[in-house]
């Protein structure tokens, strides 16, 4: 009885698996299929990829992707198909274009601004005489005195 309960408990999740079984016999197509569905957002439940989602929009989109793959479409053509219908937001990694340029370049720009700020602060401090000491070193000194 206990063994049976354990067996049922362990196998229950299989019953809820998303699209059980392989979609393609060809391992190369299967690999491309799995790559694409983990790169595409399920628009109905935006924090899940098509691969993770059981929402019926995800089921429909997986079906469309399987159809396109079996028609011999390339990955780029399939991404185009999705972007044309749902916009760049459908892709977890939006492609570089005029619209998404800000998205891609903003982190680099922020990093650059940070680097410039860091360099200028370090340069300024290096220009100070060693014993000049600003507020911070005064504070440190006081702490050292007390210990």
């Amino acid at each position, binding site marked *: 009885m206990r063994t049976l309960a354990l067996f049922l408990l362990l196998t229950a999740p299989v019953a809820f698996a998303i699209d059980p079984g392989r979609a393609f016999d060809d391992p190369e197509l299967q690999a491309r299929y799995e790559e694409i569905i983990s790169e595409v957002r399920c628009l109905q439940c935006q924090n899940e990829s098509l691969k993770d989602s059981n929402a019926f929009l995800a089921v429909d989109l997986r079906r469309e992707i399987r159809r396109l793959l079996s028609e011999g479409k390339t990955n780029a053509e399939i991404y185009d198909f999705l972007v044309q219908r749902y916009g760049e*937001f459908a892709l977890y990694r939006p492609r570089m274009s005029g619209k998404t340029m800000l998205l891609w370049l903003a982190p680099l720009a922020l990093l650059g601004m940070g680097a410039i700020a860091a360099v200028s602060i370090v340069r300024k401090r290096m220009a100070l005489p060693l014993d000049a000491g600003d507020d911070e070193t005064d504070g440190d000194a006081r702490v050292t005195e007390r210990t």
Partner: protein
Amino acid sequence: MNLRYLLPIAAFGILIPVFIIGLQRDPSELPSPYIGKPAPAFTLPSLEDPDLTVGSDDYAGRVALVNVWATWCVGCRHEHDFLMALAKREDIPIYGLNWRDDREEALMWLQRLGNPYVASAFDQEGTVAVDWGVYGAPETFLIGADGTVLHKHLGPLTEQVWESDFQAKIEAARGN
């Protein structure tokens, strides 16, 4: 004043409006990439009669609404009364795209609540919905006489939404 104090204040002054605007936007509302582009053509079995078809040819040449609905969709129940009122005005034809629904239940719904649609297409597999970039229901597309998507509304239609987002666009489309 020294740049050292001015800079954080300036950054604060820029960030606050960005946050105020950004936080008031609903991240689940995506702009349709079809706005200003031709709506995809389709032909589907009619909801009422599987032997008949309903498709984009039915409203070609007229300004029309395509409303995505389903009996499982709570928002569709909310907007139904408004759709009925809109249909009574006989100002603009409303076509339904019944999305991934049960035919019997959908017909019951129309019988019980009234049928605001000129015709409803029965998209059981969701293929046309995917072509149209539908990702929730209700969604309402405003289609121009030349088949261009003029506007897409996500969520239930109300009188308020109608007046602010649809009326001017419809008048402009007819003026041409």
